[in-house]
């Protein structure tokens, strides 16, 4: 594996499967009595959050703590970082604090990439969401959840078709999922009104559609993205009602899906907008499970990037 996890592109198929396999074993241990492993004892993980995201932060925090790492939460909002102090200054501060890994959430696309490539810091950089770019651990936990239900928790996702529905244009979750699903052999299908698809969508790996009803019957999983209310004001779509009518997942639509087809959502959900409460709470919904899987997957990433001596991963024996 590469030293950092900045983009889903950093993972080869073997890397991705290794993360999922490792997460599976860690989940098995965590499900039992073991809440804490000594693996990262003495290592410092900094959660560097320039944007609020309680869910992602506590998921990484739980993952780090279960591996016995020391966790420092550095919320940059409201601190000197908001204005003036640069990313570089912050990075150098963390370096002098002896951070072994920096989990970074940033509003600007590419900020984790800079941290990983500029020699400001030696630490491993893990992207916890940057601007409208990527969120690779979210894609890993989605892949883990899908694999667990549809591929018996082993191997890759080859042959599966997964619809990603909603604000693709602004979604880092969609970008990372499009890449990782492809890496794992699945076909991502981006579904949104044309205004919420990026200009070059036809050149992305995978497929796209403007029509949710056509796509739903043939997919193995559907991932509903949160739609921000403010998009409406920028004329991306006329009204929330019209959006929900065309792209919201309700019971009627869910009934057109295959029996085994899963419903995922990265959260937090806008119930009534992109997903109805009935669907969110239905038997095929794995939304709650995604949260638990998030901790296992992040533990796996932390172990694989931080547990060993160097950038290579894999048992050479």
């Amino acid at each position, binding site marked *: 594996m590469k030293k950092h996890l900045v983009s889903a592109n950093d993972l080869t198929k073997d890397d991705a499967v290794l993360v999922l396999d490792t997460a599976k074993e860690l989940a098995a241990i965590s499900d039992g009595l073991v809440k804490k492993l000594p693996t990262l004892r003495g290592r410092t993980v900094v959660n560097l959050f320039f944007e609020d995201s309680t869910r992602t932060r506590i998921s990484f925090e739980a993952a780090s703590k279960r591996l016995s790492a020391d966790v420092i939460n550095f919320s940059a909002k409201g601190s000197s970082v908001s204005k003036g102090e*640069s*990313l*570089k200054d912050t990075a150098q501060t963390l370096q002098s604090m002896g951070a072994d890994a920096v989990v970074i959430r*940033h*509003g*600007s*696309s*590419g*900020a984790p*990439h*800079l941290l990983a*490539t500029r020699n400001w810091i030696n630490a491993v950089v893990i992207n916890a969401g*940057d*601007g*409208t*770019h*990527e969120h690779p651990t979210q894609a890993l936990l989605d892949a883990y959840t899908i694999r667990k239900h549809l591929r018996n928790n082993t191997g890759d996702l080859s042959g599966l078709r997964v619809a990603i529905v909603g604000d693709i*244009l602004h979604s*880092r979750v969609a*970008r990372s999922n499009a890449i990782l699903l492809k890496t794992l052999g699945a076909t991502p299908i981006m579904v949104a009104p044309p205004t919420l698809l*990026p*200009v*070059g*969508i036809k*050149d*992305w790996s995978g497929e796209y559609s403007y029509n949710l009803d056509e796509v739903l019957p043939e997919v193995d999983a559907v991932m509903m993205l949160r739609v921000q209310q403010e998009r409406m004001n920028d004329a991306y779509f006329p009204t929330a009602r019209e959006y929900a009518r065309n792209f919201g997942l309700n019971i009627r639509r869910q009934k057109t899906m295959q029996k085994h087809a899963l419903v995922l959502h990265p959260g937090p959900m806008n119930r009534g907008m992109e997903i109805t409460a009935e669907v969110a709470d239905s038997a095929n919904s794995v939304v709650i499970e995604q949260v638990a899987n998030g901790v296992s997957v992040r533990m796996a990433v932390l172990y694989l990037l931080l547990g060993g001596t160097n950038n290579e991963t894999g048992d050479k024996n």
Partner: protein
Amino acid sequence: MKILLKNGSIKGEKVLDILIENDKIIKIGAPNTIKDTEAEIVDLTGLIVLPGLVDLHTHLREPGREDAETISTGSAAAAKGGYTAVHAMANTLPVADTAGVVEQVWNLGKSVGLVDVYPVGAVTIGLLGENLAELSAMADSKARVRIFSDDGNCVSDPVLMRRALEYVKAFNGVIAQHAQEPRLTQNAQMNESTLSGQLGLTGWPAVAEEAIVARDVLLTEHVQSKLHVCHASTAGTVEILRWAKDKKVNVTAEVTPHHLFLSQIHCESYDAKFKVNPPLRRVEDVTELRNALAQGIIDVVATDHAPHPREDKEGEWNSAAFGMTGLETALAVVATAMIDTKLMTWSDVARVMSEKPAEIGQLTEHGRPIAENEIANLCIIDPNTSWKVDAKDTHSLSTNNPFDGMTLKSKVVHTIFRGKFSMKSGQVQK
């Protein structure tokens, strides 16, 4: 004081000797036909002599942002790059929107004395796009402003643009438009493309430039005025310019060295030294811009030299400033992009980097033929060298040069400004 330049190739053609006395070329002749015992003799064997370069688009930052550049440091960078005249853009603090400010810039340029600094006047007060600045007062000032631009802030209001085009006809002025539809480029970060989608950087569509260029061309034709299109960056803009020139609309256009050389692929690094307005475009656009320059559809190369202090360039892409420095590398970039590729000759380079810019700026002492009795503004180039750009090795106060680390062909060796070396053997003569 006399200088005898021996064996220089004039615009890459005839090899001649040139004798300069005070600020003028007093004699030109075949090699070794001019004898003058008092003159300092400089051997130019193997070198090319062009008229001193003229930049239509330079940000000197003074007054207001002297941390990024001053007229003194910018002039030195210009001299180093072979320039003998630059046009200082109006987006200073205070804005160059009054006769007072443009005269101050003009005077500062004179007192530095390394290049002629011609101020560009703002079209609207404070570059706010609301009310016309006192264009006529600037035109009549000591600075004799002829080019007006709200550069960076497009004059997007069609009525205001129409009025400005009409108004400057009274003193034969030209409106230099930075073509950028503001609503289509809100928070835009890079060229809108598959790549921008993948990098998660807000797209800057080509149409945001082309829509304004098309509108302005039509307005210019309608009111029979003069338009200059700043830093054309797309194949679509070239297409509109070609159409306008066919229709004999009085429009000229510039392209920057970086748009002739760099494409959007550099944005993949998220290194903000590649963040510029207009943004770096597709490879296809680069190719089209080169062809357009060679064919004369685009008239001139202008640097858009835009110095920024380091802290404005080393952070995250979204919060970094737009712009690149370019005065010291422009000639080499153009030579590498256009001469090395056999698209142009040195005589063409003289046209697009000196003669035509001087004509657009209505300068009488720059971009002139290399002939007896002309003012001696010259740029002397070694066409047979290649060098690696080091952004830190600069006279500019800023180091945001995107060509850092790249290898370029040809280098300016000497610059002669009004009969004196402003730069000699790579050393700026302060």
